[in-house]
């Protein structure tokens, strides 16, 4: 790397594309959401209300990505069919 490189070309400062993949906030979690796929009717309310975007949509039911889930419990509280239960981590 030569010192003559201008900064705006991004050679001196490492940079990454938008959307953080390096900070995994899943380690903040105390309670983990667990989905009962038989009760899930794919209404997507949990997907709408998740502040962390941790829930993924699939064809028949949702899946919960634990990389970014902070375990706030909104999905459990809002699920109309009680398909999501919060389980303490480590159990």
């Amino acid at each position, binding site marked *: 790397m030569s010192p003559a490189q201008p900064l705006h070309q991004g050679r001196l400062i490492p940079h990454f594309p938008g959307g*953080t993949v390096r900070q995994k906030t899943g380690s903040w979690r105390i309670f983990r959401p667990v989905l009962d796929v038989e009760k899930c009717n794919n209404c997507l309310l949990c997907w709408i209300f*998740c*502040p*962390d*975007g941790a829930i993924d949509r699939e064809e028949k039911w949702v899946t919960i990505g634990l990389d970014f889930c902070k375990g*706030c419990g*909104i999905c*459990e509280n809002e699920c109309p069919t009680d398909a999501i239960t919060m389980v303490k981590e480590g159990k």
Partner: protein
Amino acid sequence: MSGVISVRPKDLPFDESVVGHLGCSGCGAFVAVRLALKILGDQTMLAIPACCVLATTCFYPQVPLKVPTLMTAFPATAATASGIAAGLRHLGKKKEITVVGLAGDGGTADIGIQALSGALDRGDQILYICYDNEAYMNTGVQRSGATPKGARTTTTPGGQRGMWESSPKKDLLSIVAAHGIPYAATSCISFPQDFMQKLAKAAQVEDGPSFIHVLAPCPPGWGYASEKTIELGKLAVEAGVFILREWENGEMKVTRKLRKRKPLAEYLKPQARFRHLTDEEIKAMEEEIARAWETIS
């Protein structure tokens, strides 16, 4: 932005525009930001001042937001958005890209109100979203102009002299509507369809600024368990504390009329910031709400 935007959950895009932020667990503001970016799409530019969203997203070397974001000074959100809009107009990209000013309630109702008023007066093509968590939350819950009467914050701590927040919540929508802009509305994250419909309407305004004021409950600031974020937003609307309104074509209308208001205590009791209120005080507040509803309808 053009065409009809569907707000059905199944039609919304899969892509997450904000992932990996460091907001508190159960943060209401990020529900608002996520849904807003789903409706507005990737042809959006954000101007964000010092606020919760900036304090929990913008860390070197990566930003969780996938749209171009300009971090700006606290009072300058609307002025910055105006500048971006002027630049885009010069480049002939005014119609392709939505310019969004995104600020908290302090940055809108107190510190940023002068720049906001200027931008609305000039009639710049911007969309201003104010997410309202009713205090300066990321600096440690200091009172703002949007803090409701009776709330405990760190600068209105109460105590024996009863020094709780004494002034009522600023009516931001009326202040903004008084500028005679094409579209302004209040909404709440607990009513996502309503919020997204209003956002889609605001994004499609072509001849001037538009404004959305969205209530976003805050677990650490309001003092409740993180899973109740959506529930409390719903209760705020159903108890009549926060009125969902819309200003369009020079007319103010209530978009969610309540046949019967829920008891106010149901909304206040789960929150630590209202725990000191006595039954008489709650009754007095309920009467105030009833009066507010009478004047608007």
